[in-house]
Every structure is written in structure tokens, then in C-alpha cells.
């Protein structure tokens, strides 16, 4: 598969995954040290999905995310500085301090503030796709959500409506096996969430969510199909969130063997190994990439920390247009 993609594209996808990983590793430490307010839901282990899907999108396409969307934000093009400033609750954050970790996004690059009600973004993305279709625009909407969301009524109602109207929307389910601490097998009889697609009469595809190239290819097909007016696809990406639910999760509900098994499938070392084995990436180039990412993160932190806080009374603005 990799052979069909240009080397630059592969390296770029690797770099983007690594950038998300380093970003989240760093903010995790900042949170633990008490430097950042709020809470965080990290996506370490799921980077291939955000990157593989968004590599097919332009700025005009619109995505909806979830409470766990730092990765999607970076992959869709939200600037790291504005994202960092948002997490630091500063006035030049991507939502000027009115979003925070669970609502990151910037419509200027085609990402709504992430919707942190499980399943809540799925109808919204469907409505965006309806607008694209009515306006005859060559744009698609992508809704990212987790396995838990597929048990919400919002999932069922919205996908059914996206299906009957052949809307240009892609439903990307990041099945990381857990809704908070509950394993998916406890709350769903189906093995593959993608099979739910067939009850709406649309294609459902299972993909290895820890293989960025596989995600890229599956998403490309679904997006091409949507752009041609052939309607939505449900893509289920099998994955795992290495760090558990949120920042203070000791993960006692998880089997250590399971964690080990999935750690071996970590999408980033896996991609790196392949790129080095195929001589696409040299270790020197790899080090340069890492150094550049670290520098970008340092600068983003500096930017965020030197940014002003919002004025308290800014809380009263932006209620009505």
C-alpha cells in the first residue's frame, strides 16, 4: 500500500502523528504539574485516525470532534499556538478561553468547537453535509466519535438521515474499546460497530486504526464516494487509548496483557519502523523531525504562557449574534 503514496506524503503523515503525540505528552506533564487548568482527555495511540482521515481533507471541509480531540484539531490545521493558548485558558486561544480542552476547534480551518456530549456532533456534521449538498458545494463533513457514541440515539437518527439523503458526510468511529471504564463488549453484542452501517443501507468498513496508511486509504475511498454524491460511509477504526480515559485514570479496569498487546501496535513506532525499513526515513531525518516538533511545542508553550488571560467580563460576550 505504502508504495502507491509518495514518500513525502508518508513522512508528512508520520510527522503529523508524532507532532500530536509529543504535544499530548507535553500537555499531560503540564497538567500534572498544575500549570494548566481544567481537565484533559488524551488520545495517545489514536493519532493515526485523525491524521489518516484529515490528510484527505481541505480547509473547506468541516469536521466535528469530541471531548478527546486535540489530535483532530492539530491534524485539521488548528494552529498549535492557538490550541496551546486555549488549553492555558488564554484570550488568544482558538476559542478565546471559552472552549478549553473539550471544545477545541477553529472554523477558519474547518473544525467546529469539539462537541463534548457523547454522540452530539454526529447530527451536527450531518446537517453541515446537508447544507453542502443544498448549496451544491464540493465539500464534505466528517464526524469523529467513539465506540460509546454508537449506542446513542443521536448516532442512529443522524446516520439514518445522512443515508436517506445521500449526504456528503463520513462517520468515523474511533473504537478504542472503552467508554470511560466500560469495555465495549459489555455494552454491545456486535463485534464490529461498522456492521451497524448496514441497518442504514450504507457501507460500513472496519480498518486497523493504528495503521495510518490503511486509515488514509479507507477514508480516501469514503470521501471520494461522498464527493460524488453517493452518500455516507461508516468507518470503524479499531484502536486503543494508551493513557486511559482522562488525566487521573489509574486504569485498574484494564487488563495489563491487553495494554501490552496494544502498546506493541502503537501506530507511531510502527510507522517509523516501516519507513526506516523501506529507506523512506533515515534516522537522521527522524531526529530532525523530532527536534523540530519539540521546538514548535516549546514555542507554543511560550506563546501561550505569555498570552493575556481573557477579561473576567468577557464571559458575558458572544451569547447572541
Amino acid at each position, binding site marked *: 500500500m505504502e508504495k502507491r503514496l509518495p514518500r513525502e506524503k508518508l513522512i508528512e503523515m508520520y510527522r503529523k502523528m508524532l507532532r500530536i503525540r509529543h504535544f499530548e505528552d507535553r500537555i499531560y506533564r503540564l497538567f500534572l504539574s498544575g500549570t494548566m487548568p481544567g481537565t484533559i482527555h488524551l488520545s495517545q495511540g489514536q493519532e493515526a485516525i485523525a491524521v489518516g482521515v484529515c490528510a484527505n481533507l481541505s480547509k473547506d471541509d468541516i469536521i466535528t470532534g469530541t471531548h478527546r480531540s486535540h489530535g483532530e484539531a492539530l491534524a485539521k490545521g488548528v494552529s498549535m499556538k492557538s490550541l496551546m493558548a486555549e488549553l492555558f485558558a488564554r484570550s488568544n486561544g482558538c476559542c478565546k478561553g471559552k472552549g478549553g480542552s473539550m471544545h477545541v476547534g477553529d472554523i477558519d480551518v474547518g473544525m467546529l468547537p469539539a462537541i463534548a456530549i457523547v454522540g*452530539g456532533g454526529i*447530527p451536527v456534521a450531518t446537517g453541515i453535509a446537508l447544507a453542502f449538498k*443544498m448549496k451544491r458545494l464540493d465539500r464534505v463533513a466528517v464526524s469523529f466519535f467513539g465506540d460509546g457514541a454508537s449506542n446513542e440515539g443521536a448516532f442512529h437518527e443522524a446516520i439514518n438521515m445522512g443515508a436517506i439523503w445521500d449526504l456528503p458526510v463520513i462517520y468515523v468511529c474511533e473504537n478504542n474499546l472503552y467508554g470511560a471504564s466500560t469495555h465495549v463488549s459489555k455494552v454491545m453484542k456486535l463485534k464490529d460497530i461498522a456492521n451497524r452501517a448496514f441497518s442504514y443501507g450504507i457501507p460500513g468498513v472496519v480498518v486497523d486504526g493504528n495503521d495510518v496508511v490503511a486509515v488514509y486509504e479507507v477514508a480516501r475511498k469514503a470521501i471520494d464516494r461522498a464527493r460524488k454524491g453517493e452518500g455516507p460511509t461508516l468507518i470503524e477504526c479499531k484502536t486503543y487509548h494508551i493513557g486511559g480515559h482522562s488525566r487521573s485514570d489509574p486504569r485498574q479496569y484494564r487488563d495489563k496483557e491487553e495494554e501490552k498487546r496494544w502498546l506493541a501496535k502503537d501506530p507511531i513506532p510502527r510507522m517509523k519502523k516501516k519507513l526506516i525499513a523501506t529507506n523512506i526515513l533515515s534516522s537522521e531525518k527522524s531526529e530532525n523531525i523530532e527536534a523540530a516538533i519539540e521546538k514548535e511545542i516549546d514555542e507554543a508553550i511560550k506563546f501561550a504562557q505569555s498570552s493575556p488571560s481573557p477579561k473576567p467580563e468577557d464571559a458575558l460576550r*458572544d451569547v447572541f449574534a
Partner: protein
Amino acid sequence: MYLLKVKENKLRNLTVAEALREAIREEMRRDESVFCIGEDIGIKGGWGGAFTVTLGLSEEFGHERILDTPISELGIAGIAVGAALAGMRPIADVEYGDFIFLAMDQLINNAAKLRYMSAGKLKVPMVMRIPVGASGRGAQHAQSLESYFVHVPGLKVVCPSNAYDAKGLLKTAIRDDNPVMFFEHKLLYGAKGRREGIDARGEVPEEEYLLPFGVAEIKREGEDVTVVATLRMVYAALSAAEELEKRGISVEVIDPRTLTPLDLETILKSVHKTNRLIIVHEDNLTGGWGAELATRVTSEAFDWLDVPVTRIAAPDTPVPFAPIMENYFVPNSEDIVRTAASVLGKS
């Protein structure tokens, strides 16, 4: 057949349903981004929604712009939010207001908050049409729901009581850049209400007009007591005012027309004159919008009040079915007459 007769009437005495339909038709002709989405709204041979408001519109605008949906209220509301975010102006319909509870997450967490969460970058220009009020259909097709939404920052709340207001306010709602919850009372639409003695028809001019939000209408001037009422209760208040006039009590009746924004100024001015305020709504008493208005008037105009602000509302029960119980449940003009007399010490 009734509809045809009205169309031939040169005076253009329209029902609320006709006035709403005309507002939608005009706005859809004016602006391609306006469309309707809901259950049973455009089906050929269907009813034009539960209350005929969209009847005939799919013939002019096609089924793409009069978009029939599955029975999926959450989906309808969420899709309207998304379409609005992406530049359309949806008018969404839920048949009976009571079904809106299925859509609350989309309205309250998304429609009302996305502008705020985006720090003003996004706007959600959508109208949610919500039929309310008891009309002989039992507990789940009867509620008055305005207060739920008055509580939510980011939503506008409109509740027209007659055809003229319905048309002018709906046109404004469609052009508003915010989510507007548009409440229509089931007994004010047309024939059914008239059988019960409520006639919300009114002269609607041929020329285009829009009515601003946040401007109350003084339906009747008076000196002794102010009665603030909306929707069906406006009619109860007006008929009470006539009765009270016979007893030498002069009543000022105010219809706020929109609850968010609320024209508090007009109400305060009236209270300054009458020194007495009665608030009437069909919603349950506890936590209704009347409580909010009572507090505001009491805080702003305590010195002008001769007696405490009084609320007349439905009791704190679900809406009963049996007509004899429903009539007891819904506040009526006798309740207002009695309360006004008592407030004036003339009971």
C-alpha cells in the same frame, strides 16, 4: 374549503396557520438558504405538518426545500443546527411541542452554545417551530414549554398570539442570526380554537412587514391593574378585561410577544401607572416565566406596587385529558376576573 374562502377574502383576514405559511413562503422566495425540515411537512396528499402550516409549500419549492424527515426529533434539531452553521436558514418543525424534549441536547448544548464556545466566530440562524398548549389531547400533546427555553442563554423565545404578529415575528425569526424557539398555540392556528371561542385571525396587510423582537404590545389600555399574558392567555385576559370594565375596573393588557428578549420597559411603565400586576401563563406555576417576570418587576418597581405581584398559571400537575379537568387546569378569564377583583380589594 375553508382555506379557499379566506384566500378570496379581500380583507385578508388570515388565520395564524395561513399567516405563518405566508411568512415562510415569502422568506423562501426571498432567500434560497431558507428551508423547512420536519415530519410530514411536504408529503403529497399529507397535511402540511401537524397543523397545516406548510401545506402546499412543497408544490412551489420542491421536496429538497420542504424536507420530510424520519420521526427523529433529535436528528431534525441537530441537522438544523449543522445546516445553520454551514450557511443555511432552517425552519425546523416537531409537530407537537412535547416532542421537543427528544431534541433538547441539540438545542441546548449545541444551538445555544456553539456561538459562545467559538467565541463569536459561529452563528446558528435557525428557527424551531414548537406547537404548545392544551387542546384535548392529554398529558403528552399539551404542554406549554416556553419557560424551559427562557432559562437558556443563547436562545430567543417568541410566542405570537395572533395572525398579524405570527407573520411579522416569524419573518424576523427567519432573518435572525440566532436560534429562535418559535411557540405557536394549537388553539390559535384556526378552526379548532374558534370552536372554543378563541379567534386569533387578524388582518394581515398585503405589503411586507416585519415585527421586531423585544417590543410588547399593549392590547388594551387601562388604569387599575396590568395583566401580562401570552398566546392563548391573551384572549382570556382580554375577555376578563371586558368583564371587569363592567364592574368599573380598568385593566391594561400587555402581550410581550417575545419572552427573550423581553420588553420589561413597557411592563414597568404600565405598572408605574396601575401599581398592580397580574401575570398569566398556561404553563405550570412553579418555575414558569411568570416567576422570573414577577421577580424582575418586584426588584425594579417595588415602590410602585400597591400589592404583591400575582401569578395565574396552570397548577403543578401534568395536563389532564378529560375536558372537564383540562378546563379546570388551564387558566381562564374567570380566574383573571376573580384575581383582579381581589387584587383591587373588590372581591
